[in-house]
Structures are given as structure tokens and as C-alpha cells.
């Protein structure tokens, strides 16, 4: 114990001003020794109270030090630091710029992470709000499972853990009248929805349980953005009528800005359940359920209550609920999901960049301090204490850090605007909420302080470590190779920099390789010159399937006649849009399949108009395509994809086989299914990363749903057909908005937008890191060369060839970068498993990437050593020897 106290005192003692340090140490030791002597006389060890008392030595030491440092002295330091920085504007500019970029990039990425992952969601007590997902008992952890209306109603009635539970369905509605027809994302919500979230309306009221009955008034609540855009932000809009999907609804409220849940919803409509929904639809899962905990109810308790209840339902309805259970997710997890890893990965990467920035600036400071040895020696000789010199350097680095932080904040504000403006199609939720707020500013200040400490302390301690006054003042103290210890520290810094740069380069390389393999996967259709747009038929205006088919036929016929169009067709469930039904077979070749049937296939259902496959360039492998003869009333015909053929009929020709899905598609339609007439090529409907799933294509004319995506193969650029097609649609029905206007090229690019963004950012970080590392290598080498001028001069005078001199410098660079490379690759290999989830078609330890990084680094280190080496070889021996 006594030893511990003594060690502590010794540790603290440097803080005490030098002249009174001995007395200070003596006094504290004596007091401790006195207590120790007393207690040992009483036969005890040193009491804990005395040890605790020794902690007070630190405030005492700090007080003594601060007492010595008066404010005017600090002011003097500041003035001196500013003046000495001003004298070398080049140094100041490089340092500030480097720091500004490093700190700014960190602040911006932190801002994005905060918006997406950290900032509380915009409703009160968000931790009490959960989503309830219907999941399978085999994979209960998979988020996003929707729930059937009867299950939801049972949960709501019988659960005890929640104050309120509500369901929502996100779709889209056509808004017409008072301006152009417009398709906006909507949310159908049950009455408790806004109470669960706890957000009141800005004007009017939210939807309430009173809006739930099937015969209640048709009402709507506007989201803030739609209200601003279409109704010019007039509060008087409450109480007026708006035409939604062809029928009038009364606007009862407007939501405040910043409220958007489900994401992007712009209009809220009541979700109502007819009697038949409740009875017959326990298998139809389409509701997203949210709930708010009662006070005091824990997540685990609510989870176990719902799991138990799910077992009750499973016992009661084994056919639909047999393998289902309920899993609770925090609202944030449900929203953000997989993006979280990527965000933290980026934050880590940019943190590495900042680390390199610190190392580099530390190196700059160190170089500068070495150049100022003489100045320090003179100041010390004139009576400045070592502490004073250290303090001066620390003040200097604090000033640089602070200014760097300010530059960084400006840079961050600029980057933040870019991040917030990124395309929503990127699929990173809440990213548009990124902004520089108080927390980001505090973060930036903290980071600046931390960097200042990191890059300032080392050189300061270093400078003060050995002040050989007489030696430093004499100008001839320039040794032949410089202080070997200092050189070692700088080399270590460069190695560290290089290693970090290597880690980032490997990361960028892996992402690049992954991206390349992602984009080289054939998607299964001929993607060029394909323009798409969607149309939806409001039920009041297109009540019968015949009216929808007629409209679609006319639209496609007239579109095909447009001069820009080579071929026109349409589909429900366009590839790369995540839209399709997944339904299990109910019967196969007349045999009923039950839940227990192991070979009960699950297929993706898509509905196509005639000529779909030829328009998209999807090959028909066997049989025929779907055409104009496959109409309502004709025998139901089906085209399946190759995966379905292989999985369902592995040993037989699928043509001619029959199946049924057991549910009707659309209102009053026939039971979906039919006879297989052809096999089409596989399409990667869910993007390059997901393999094709078994898919069946039905004829749209036989199952006319109220939504359709038109596909046009154009003669020229796809965009040229958009306006003629819009005019055509307006001519056919001015109330039908044209929406989701995208070319297939855009869609293919959207599905890889996230990986592309990550790749771009990481490549940027890695590039910056490599540049900084190269500057570091260059700095060390030029310093060495200038220190070795005399030695090299002697060597040259004694007959060394310039080539030998060059190779000795290059060898030094190679040694530094080689060690850095090895360390970096080891770190990268160890960290590899963390990025596994972000990679596609490439292993975390990828030879090609590793070799490429090594090669790249070799080139960079050669380039960095080129100038110093050349300078070394051109040293004039005579001048060098006359150096002093």
C-alpha cells in the first residue's frame, strides 16, 4: 500500500513546479509515512483512508501548477504561438487543411450515423414503442414479418403489456382534383396508430378509433410535405374534401413537419376491416403492427407474453398459425436493420483517416520542433522552464486543433448538405435527416481537442525530453544523422500511418472487387432501352376486371404505335422493384397439398401482359410465351421460370402440368393457377445478390389487378418516350397519374446504389490515407537526407556512386513501407470478418486485393522517396563539407 502511494506521488510530481517539487514530495511522503508508522505500531497495515487521502495530491499539484501559470502568462503563450504560426503560413495552412478535412469528414459521417442510428425517433419516449412481427418459429429473429388482420385483432384484444396497439399498411394513392394527378405514398392505419406514436396533429385531429368502423366517414390526414406541396400549407384545408383514388375524403388533420412513419407516407387513411377480412384471412399477412408498452413493462416481459399468446393461437388455428410466432423489435431496429453495420463501418473507416491525420500532423509538429531546437535552447538559457516550453507547445497545438475544428465544421456543414440530399432511392432510412446539430458540434469540438492532444503531446514531450543547452546553442551541433531516438519515433509514426492506410486500402479493394462481381452478374433481361412507368386503377372508376383489361389493352396498343417505341408490354411485379406475391401451391396436378407436404412449393407470382418476355428480352426456353389469346374466359395459362421448373419438376417436362395457388388474385377473380405452357429464362428479380426464386407468370388479362407497370422498349434513349407516353395516358384518362417513371438502367443502378456509395466513400478515405502516408514517408526521408547531408557528402567525396546514395535512401523508404504493409495486412486480415456481411462474391482475405495493395504501396513509397533520393544524389561534396 505504501509503495502504491509512493508510486502515485511520483507519477503526479511532474505536475508540481520544479522548484518546490522536492518539498512537495517530502511533505506528502512524510504524512503517509506518519500514518503508516502509527498503524504499524497498532499492528495494522496502512489504512484505506490514507490511500484515499493520497488521491488529494493530484488536485494539490494541479493547484500549485495553475497558481504558477497566471492568466497573463497563458495570454503571452497564445500570442507567441499565434506569432510563430503566422511566421510559417505554409505549415499552418497545410496543418489546418489536413485537420479540417479529417475532422470535417468525421463530423459529417458522425452526423449521418446520428441521424440514422443514434438520434431518438421524432416521437415521445421512442424506446417504449415496438413493432410486433409475425415470424416463423424456425427463424424468429428475422425482422419485417407482417401480420394478418385476425391475428392483429386478437393480439390487440388479449395482450396485457401495451397501452395501445395499432396496424398500418403502406401503399400509394392517386390524388386528383385541384392540380395534376399525383401518386403519393400513403399509410392505411387503425385508430390507435397516432396514439401509439404519441404525436398530435399540427392542425385538426389525427385518426382515432372512432374512424375504424367500416361505415364511418371517409376521412384523411395529410402529411406535412403533401400539405405544403399541394395545399400551400393552408391551415384552412382542414374540413375540405380531397379526391383520393377517385373518391372524395374529408381532410380532418395535418401532421407536423418531421413526422413520417411509416417512412415517406404523405397521407394517412383509416384501415378498416370488413367482417370477411376478420373471418377468412388469418393467412393473409399484410399488416405492420406497432404498440406502446404500459409503464413498467419490460421488453422481455412483453416478448414472452406475446410468444405465449402465439402458441395459444397456433394451437387454435394450426393450419395458418402452426409454425408462426411473434417477435418484438425496437422501432429503430425495424426501420434501420442492416444499414446499421455499414454506418458504423464507415464511421470506423473515417476514424482511421482521422488517426492518420493526427499522426501526420504530429509528424509535422515534430519536424517543426526539431527545427526549433535552437530557439528552445535560447529560451531555456534565458530562464524559461521546461514546463513553460511544454506549455507553449501545448497551447500552440490547442490553437491549431481549435482552428482545425473550425475549418472541419465548415467542411462538415458542406458534406452534410450533400449527404442529406442523397437520393432516397439509396434505401438508407432517415439519411435525409442528417444535419449539423448541437451534438455534432460538441462531437467535433471533442474530436478536435482529442486530436490536438494526440498530435501535440508527443512532440512537446519529445522536445522537452533532453534540453542540452550548450550543445543546442552551438550551431555546429548538427550531427551526421540526427538524433537516432527522434528518428525512430518518426519512423514509427510513418509505419503506423502506412499500416492504417493499408487497412483502408484493403477495405476499399474488397468493396471494389465485391462491387465488380455484383455488377457483372447477368440480370436475365436485356436492360438497355427499356423505359417503365406505373399506373394504378382507382376501384371506383375501374370497378370491373373487364374495365381494367380494356384500359390496359388500349394503353399498350397505342403506346406500341408511338414512333419512339419498338415494343410495349406490362407487368405486375417488375424486376428490381421488390414487388411480387409469394404464395404456396395449394394443389399440384389435381392433388391437394397440405402444410405437412414437404414438396409444397412456394413461388413468386407476377402478372404479365402479352409480349412481356420479348419486350424485356427474356428468352423462352421451352413451350410458348403468354399472348393475347390468354384472356379472361380462356383456359388459365402459366409461364414458369427455369428455377421453378428445376425445383418443382426436377425430372420431368413441366409443360402441361397444372397447379393452383388456392387464392383468388384481385376482386372476384378466379382462383390463381393454371396449366404450364412455357418456361422462361431466370431473372434476378431481387437484384444481383439474390439468386432467382421459383417464379410463375400469370396473364394479366386473366387476373387484372388495379396496378400495372408498363414496359416500353424504345428505339432511342429511353427518356425520350416519357413525355409522349404521359400525353397518351392523359388523353386516355386525365385522372390517372403516371408514377414510378424509371428506366431499367436506372433500376439496375439503384439496386447497387448502396454498395456503390460505400465503395466511393471508402475509396475516398483510402486515397486520402495513402496520400497522407506518402507525405509522411516523404517528410521522414527528406528530413533524414538533410540531416545526413554531411555524411552523404563524405561518401560521395570518397567515391560512392550517386546510384548507391539513391538506393540507400530508397531502401529506407522500402523498409518503412514494408513494415507498415505487413502490420496493415495483419490488421486487415484480423478485421476481415467484420466486413464479411458487406461483401459479395469475394472472401475477406482476398489474394488479388492483398497483392494489389502491396503493389500499390510499393509504387507510392517509390514515388515518395524519389525527390529526397534525387536530392541526396545531387549533394555537392564540397558544399556539404563546408556546411558549417
Amino acid at each position: 500500500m505504501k509503495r502504491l502511494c509512493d508510486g502515485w506521488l511520483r507519477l503526479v510530481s511532474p505536475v508540481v513546479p520544479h522548484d518546490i517539487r522536492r518539498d512537495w514530495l517530502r511533505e506528502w511522503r512524510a504524512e503517509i509515512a506518519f500514518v503508516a508508522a502509527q498503524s504499524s505500531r497498532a499492528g495494522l497495515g496502512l489504512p484505506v483512508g490514507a490511500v484515499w487521502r493520497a488521491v488529494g495530491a493530484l488536485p494539490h499539484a494541479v493547484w500549485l501548477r495553475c497558481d504558477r501559470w497566471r492568466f497573463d502568462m497563458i495570454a503571452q503563450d497564445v500570442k507567441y504561438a499565434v506569432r510563430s504560426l503566422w511566421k510559417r503560413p505554409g505549415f499552418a495552412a497545410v496543418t489546418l487543411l489536413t485537420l479540417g478535412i479529417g475532422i470535417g469528414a468525421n463530423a459529417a459521417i458522425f452526423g449521418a450515423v446520428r441521424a440514422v442510428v443514434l438520434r431518438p425517433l421524432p416521437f415521445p419516449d421512442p424506446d417504449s414503442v415496438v413493432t410486433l412481427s409475425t415470424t416463423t418459429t424456425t427463424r424468429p429473429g428475422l425482422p419485417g414479418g407482417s401480420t394478418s388482420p385476425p391475428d392483429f385483432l386478437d393480439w390487440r384484444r388479449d395482450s396485457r403489456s401495451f397501452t395501445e396497439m395499432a396496424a398500418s399498411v403502406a401503399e400509394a394513392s392517386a390524388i386528383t382534383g385541384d392540380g395534376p394527378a399525383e401518386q403519393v405514398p400513403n399509410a392505411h392505419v387503425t385508430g390507435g396508430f397516432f396514439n401509439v406514436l404519441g404525436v398530435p396533429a399540427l392542425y385538426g385531429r389525427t385518426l382515432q378509433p372512432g374512424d375504424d368502423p367500416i361505415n364511418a366517414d371517409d376521412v384523411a390526414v395529410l402529411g406535412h410535405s403533401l400539405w405544403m406541396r399541394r395545399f400551400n400549407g393552408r391551415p384552412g384545408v382542414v374540413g375540405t374534401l380531397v379526391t383520393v383514388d377517385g373518391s372524395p375524403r374529408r381532410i380532418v388533420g395535418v401532421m407536423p413537419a418531421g413526422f413520417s412513419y411509416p417512412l415517406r407516407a404523405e397521407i394517412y387513411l383509416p384501415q378498416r376491416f370488413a367482417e370477411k377480412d376478420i373471418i377468412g384471412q388469418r393467412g393473409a399477412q399484410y399488416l405492420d403492427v406497432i404498440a406502446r408498452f404500459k409503464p413498467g413493462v419490460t421488453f422481455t416481459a412483453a416478448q414472452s407474453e406475446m410468444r405465449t399468446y402465439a402458441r395459444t393461437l397456433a394451437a387454435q388455428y394450426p393450419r395458418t398459425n402452426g409454425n408462426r410466432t411473434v417477435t418484438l423489435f425496437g422501432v429503430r431496429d425495424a426501420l434501420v436493420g442492416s444499414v446499421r453495420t455499414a454506418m458504423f463501418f464507415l464511421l470506423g473507416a473515417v476514424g482511421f483517416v482521422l488517426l492518420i491525420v493526427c499522426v501526420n500532423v504530429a509528424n509535422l509538429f515534430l519536424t517543426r520542433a526539431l527545427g526549433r531546437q535552437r530557439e528552445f535552447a535560447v529560451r531555456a538559457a534565458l530562464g524559461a522552464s521546461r514546463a513553460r516550453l511544454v506549455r507553449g507547445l501545448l497551447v500552440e497545438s490547442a490553437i491549431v486543433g481549435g482552428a482545425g475544428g473550425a475549418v472541419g465544421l465548415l467542411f462538415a456543414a458542406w458534406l452534410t448538405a450533400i449527404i442529406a440530399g442523397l437520393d432516397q432511392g439509396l434505401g438508407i432510412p432517415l439519411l435525409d435527416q442528417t444535419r449539423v446539430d448541437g451534438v455534432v458540434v460538441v462531437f467535433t469540438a471533442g474530436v478536435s481537442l482529442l486530436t490536438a492532444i494526440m498530435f501535440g503531446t508527443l512532440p512537446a514531450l519529445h522536445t522537452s525530453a533532453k534540453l542540452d543547452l550548450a550543445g543546442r546553442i552551438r550551431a555546429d551541433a548538427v550531427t551526421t544523422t540526427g538524433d537516432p531516438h527522434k528518428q525512430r519515433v518518426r519512423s514509427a509514426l510513418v509505419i503506423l500511418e502506412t499500416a492504417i492506410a493499408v487497412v483502408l486500402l484493403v477495405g476499399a479493394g474488397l468493396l471494389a472487387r465485391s462491387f465488380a462481381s455484383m455488377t457483372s452478374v447477368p440480370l436475365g433481361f436485356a436492360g438497355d432501352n427499356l423505359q417503365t412507368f406505373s399506373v394504378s386503377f382507382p376501384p371506383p372508376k375501374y370497378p370491373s376486371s373487364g374495365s381494367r383489361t380494356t384500359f390496359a389493352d388500349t394503353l399498350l396498343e397505342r403506346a406500341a404505335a408511338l414512333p419512339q417505341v419498338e415494343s410495349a408490354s406490362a407487368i405486375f411485379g417488375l424486376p428490381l422493384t421488390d414487388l411480387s406475391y409469394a404464395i404456396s401451391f395449394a394443389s399440384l396436378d389435381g392433388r391437394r397439398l397440405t402444410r405437412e407436404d414437404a414438396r409444397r412449393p412456394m413461388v413468386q407470382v407476377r402478372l404479365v401482359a402479352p409480349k412481356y418476355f420479348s419486350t424485356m428480352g427474356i428468352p423462352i426456353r421451352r413451350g410458348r410465351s403468354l399472348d393475347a389469346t390468354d384472356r379472361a374466359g380462356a383456359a388459365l395459362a402459366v409461364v414458369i421460370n427455369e428455377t421453378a421448373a428445376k425445383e418443382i419438376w426436377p425430372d420431368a417436362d413441366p409443360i402441361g402440368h397444372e397447379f393452383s395457388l388456392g387464392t383468388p388474385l384481385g376482386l372476384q377473380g378466379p382462383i390463381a393457377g393454371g396449366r404450364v405452357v412455357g418456361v422462361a429464362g431466370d431473372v434476378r428479380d431481387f437484384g444481383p445478390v439474390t439468386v432467382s426464386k421459383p417464379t410463375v407468370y400469370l396473364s394479366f388479362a386473366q387476373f387484372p389487378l388495379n396496378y400495372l407497370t408498363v414496359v416500353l422498349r424504345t428505339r432511342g434513349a429511353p427518356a425520350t418516350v416519357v413525355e409522349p407516353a404521359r400525353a397518351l395516358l392523359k388523353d386516355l384518362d386525365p385522372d390517372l397519374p403516371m408514377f414510378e417513371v424509371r428506366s431499367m438502367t436506372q433500376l439496375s443502378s439503384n439496386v447497387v446504389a448502396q454498395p456503390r456509395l460505400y465503395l466511393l466513400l471508402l475509396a475516398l478515405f483510402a486515397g486520402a490515407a495513402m496520400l497522407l502516408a506518402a507525405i509522411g514517408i516523404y517528410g521522414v526521408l527528406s528530413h533524414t537526407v538533410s540531416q545526413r547531408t554531411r555524411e552523404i557528402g563524405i561518401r560521395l567525396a570518397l567515391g560512392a556512386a550517386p546510384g548507391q546514395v539513391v538506393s540507400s535512401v530508397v531502401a529506407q523508404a522500402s523498409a518503412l513501407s514494408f513494415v507498415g504493409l505487413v502490420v496493415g495486412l495483419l490488421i486487415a486480415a484480423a478485421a476481415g470478418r467484420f466486413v464479411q456481411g458487406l461483401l459479395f462474391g469475394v472472401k475477406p482475405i482476398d489474394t488479388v486485393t492483398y497483392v494489389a495493395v502491396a503493389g500499390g504501396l510499393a509504387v507510392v513509397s517509390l514515388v515518395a522517396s524519389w525527390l529526397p533520393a534525387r536530392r541526396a544524389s545531387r549533394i555537392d561534396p564540397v558544399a556539404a563539407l563546408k556546411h558549417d
Partner: protein
Amino acid sequence: MRRLRITAVNVLQAIANGYEYGFDIIDQTGLPSGTVYPALSRLERDGLVRSAWEDEAAAHAEGRPARRYYRVTAPGARALSESASFYRALLAVRPRAAGKATRSTR
């Protein structure tokens, strides 16, 4: 004369009462070491106390190093009595608020 803070009065009073070593003052006042020592250094800087080392021989006899002791100087005694009467006056006005301080200075 600038008025002393309550902590300084506390420490000064303890020394005046004959508790002259750092840890004794801590024991006496009940204040933490991180408060007492800076207060001592401050008082010494302002000339209200002065310090010296106790007799080496006496300490060695007990098998420990010599301790540093503090004595109140004449200005210190004056400052103490002025400040103490100020706080006592304060005490008369707000007896409950200052009650705790009186207890520990006694």
C-alpha cells in the same frame, strides 16, 4: 483585507487550534485532502501561514521522515478574526444555513 473563504477560515482555525500537520488538519476539519492542501498552499502564498520542517531527530526516533508543519502568522491571525466575526455575524442572521460550518470549526 480580502475576506477569506469558509474553507480557508476552517483550515486556519484548525491550525490556530494547534493542529499543525496536513493530515491532522484533514482529520480535524473533515474536509478532503484535495481541498485542504490547496487551501494550505494558498494561505502560505498569501502569507497567512508559514511552514517549517519538524525536528529530524525526533522523527527519526519514531522511524519516519520529518513532517512539515504550519503556523499561523500575525496577518493570518488578523484575517482569521476578521473573517470569523464576519461569518459569525452571518450566522446570527441565517442561523440554520451556517450552522454546519460552526460545528466543524469548533
